[in-house]
């Protein structure tokens, strides 16, 4: 188009800039379109649903804050939150420690066949939980499972340990342990890779300088590795925290939340009220509340991390 004689207003300039880069907007539009339909609309509609009573099929009923009040009284929700915390405490520390140790080992110069170990520990991540959880179900079987068989044999060999066969899936406490073991098995490799990347980001000179100063292995670990790995640890911890709350596949297939509700976590509970009870209003309310708490918690953690790192 021919250049106009009059000076162009900022708006005209903007519009022609945008037109010049029109492909930019075109190329990113699929994301925004999909987000509008599958992200923004659900987000807002879910917020709205938190204030209604609805089964997805009949008429909606506005109930105001009733759903939120129900949450305070909801014993199963309370139990789900407890279970989430317990399962998290059961599996996160061992998993992170194990992942760190594996990462250290894989980072060692002298290790041969590194790729094999990496594959062995990482393979659990890529398998479908629908399949693996059933295998674990067999392994955890109280009467016929391999695990209890091994325990019995160990008991025979080392009777002073008093090892008994464990009711992995039928006991309210042990079911949580069983879930924890499954999750450790599955996600250790993933965290190991993350930690490996973190380890490899530590310059070798630090270690050399420390060795020159006469520091031994433990001291090197304590003063160099651990402090510098803190961001990685935090990241892994955060991922694990979020994972525990919303974890679904593992519990769905291994224990279905049972026995009773003893291994139901928040994720499974949300699924149950959504698609088993079809209480869409209440489910949205619970989902939103949990997400809000998690969000605030994450923000607080991030701020504390940044402050800590700033002071270091």
């Amino acid at each position, binding site marked *: 188009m021919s250049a106009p004689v009059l000076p162009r207003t*900022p*708006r005209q*300039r*903007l*519009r022609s800039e945008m037109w010049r880069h029109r492909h930019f907007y075109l190329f990113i539009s699929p994301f*925004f*379109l999909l987000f*509008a*339909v599958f992200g*923004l*609309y659900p987000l807002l509609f879910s917020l709205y649903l938190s204030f209604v*009573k*609805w*089964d*997805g*099929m*009949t*008429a*909606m*009923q506005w*109930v105001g804050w*009733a759903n939120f*009040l*129900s949450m305070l*009284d909801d*014993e199963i929700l309370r139990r789900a939150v407890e279970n989430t915390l317990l399962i998290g405490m059961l599996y996160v520390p061992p998993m992170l420690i194990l992942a760190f140790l594996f990462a250290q080992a894989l980072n060692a110069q002298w290790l041969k066949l590194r790729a094999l170990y990496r594959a062995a520990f990482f393979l659990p991540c890529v398998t479908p939980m629908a399949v693996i959880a059933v295998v674990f179900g067999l392994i955890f079987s109280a009467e016929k499972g391999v695990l209890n068989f091994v325990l019995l044999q160990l008991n025979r060999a080392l009777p002073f340990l008093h090892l008994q066969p464990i009711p992995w899936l039928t006991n309210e406490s042990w079911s949580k342990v069983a879930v924890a073991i499954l999750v450790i098995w599955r996600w250790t490799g993933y965290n190991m890779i993350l930690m490996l990347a973190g380890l490899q980001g530590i310059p070798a000179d630090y270690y050399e300088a420390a060795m020159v100063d006469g520091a031994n292995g433990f001291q090197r670990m304590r003063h160099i590795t651990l402090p510098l790995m803190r961001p990685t640890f935090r990241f892994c911890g955060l991922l694990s925290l979020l994972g525990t709350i919303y974890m679904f596949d593992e519990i769905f297939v291994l224990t*279905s939340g049972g026995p009773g509700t003893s291994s139901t976590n928040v994720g499974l509970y949300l699924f*149950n009220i959504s*698609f*088993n*009870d*079809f*209480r869409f209003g209440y489910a949205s309310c619970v989902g939103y509340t949990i997400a809000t708490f998690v969000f605030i918690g994450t923000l607080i953690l991030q701020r504390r991390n940044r402050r800590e790192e700033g002071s270091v």
Partner: protein
Amino acid sequence: MNNRKPNGLVSGLIIGCVIASVFWLLRTSPHSGAAESQTNFVVPAAHPEGKVTVWSWNIAAKSLQHLAPQFERTQPAVKVDVDMTGARMQTRLMLSLAAGVGAPDVSQFELTDAPRYIATGKLTDLTSVAERYRSRFPASLWDNCTRNGRVYAIPWDIGPCGVFYKRDLFQRYGIDPAKIETWDDYIAAGKTIFQRSGGRTKMLPLGSNSLRPMFEMLIQQNGGQVFDDQGRIAINSPQARQALAVIQKMRAAGICSDIALWSQEFLAGLNDESIATYPIAVWFAGTIKDTVKDFAGKKADWGVFRLPAITPGGLHVANLGGSVLVIPAQCRNKAAAWAFVEYALCTNAGQLEQYKSMSLFPAYLPALETPVLDEPDPFFGGQKTGRLFATDVTKISRLNRTPAWGEAIRYLDQELSRWAAGGMQSDGFFENLALKMHRRLDLPIAPPAVAANLAPQSPGEPIRRRPQ
């Protein structure tokens, strides 16, 4: 920064338009369910044909599987496929109903859930073909299968209640079951047994977390309700208080074993001397017969007597459990589906076959009147337990099981547990429960007079709180 403002405005407008159009395109119409049910009903065919998929569970499914060949002989062009595999059947069923695709041609529900599913509007209206069977089922069941006068589910089996007792224990401690007329008699007998057994034998299992079935039985005996005819909360009533008083008396008498229903101890109690009686529905007989085989130890000698009434001359009957069959609206082959449902539930042949094969107690009244139910049961010492349970089945009180029943019962459960664990303080119990239900379910509370009389009153009556 002159060009920031128009930048924001333009992008804001664009985003706003996109969102608005998305919302407009996806606006939900909550009344589509109702529209569906207006046009969906069964057109009976003289020669129905095709495949009928049935979803069912456990013993009920086995019963239908057993019945299918017999049915297919009467309708050779119909093939029945009973599917009882697959985890999470209820979830999948609800998802399919909500989504309008994937539901079976025939599905089982529990009677107590029926109103909730019927209210979704996703079930076939069976009135045109099933209305004539109305009088052949107990009114208490049929009522839960209808909505606005139209029928959507057919009652299948019923769970009339009685008391299973161990004959040897009763003999040993000198209790005559024929003399137990009321719950007071029952409690007295329980005390006797407890004393004479040196505290070893309790009369019944009634754990603090398992009070609800007993409560449900009791309010059926004195005409209590959780909801009234109009779906208002009617649990704060003299009948409810009376029922709770019975439970309180039982627990206070020390005759209750504090174990959970279906727990290991519960089942073990079938074989040892810790529990003398099990007041529960007829379908428990199957469990007794199965479990007694499993546990080592002396097999008890069993019998049944009628449920004690609350007051002399009161009702001796109540119902726990029972299922229905429905045809989801999305079924493509309603004629064939109905042919199967009709055969299985509305004929003597169908119902009695299921009774004989899997001990499903027919809800179909003509079947109950046949001599099949007069057969003595060797397991119960030759007692004609069938006839005992079938007695007065039509007198079973009708419970208004509205769509909110499941949730309301959950709150009742919680509050009863709390009541039992917290010293059984009954003052204001039902008042608080009614308020809680009112808040959670957003349903009005029926005026106290209505709750007491169970007669419908004119709507719009203000809720009157009881004077303190």
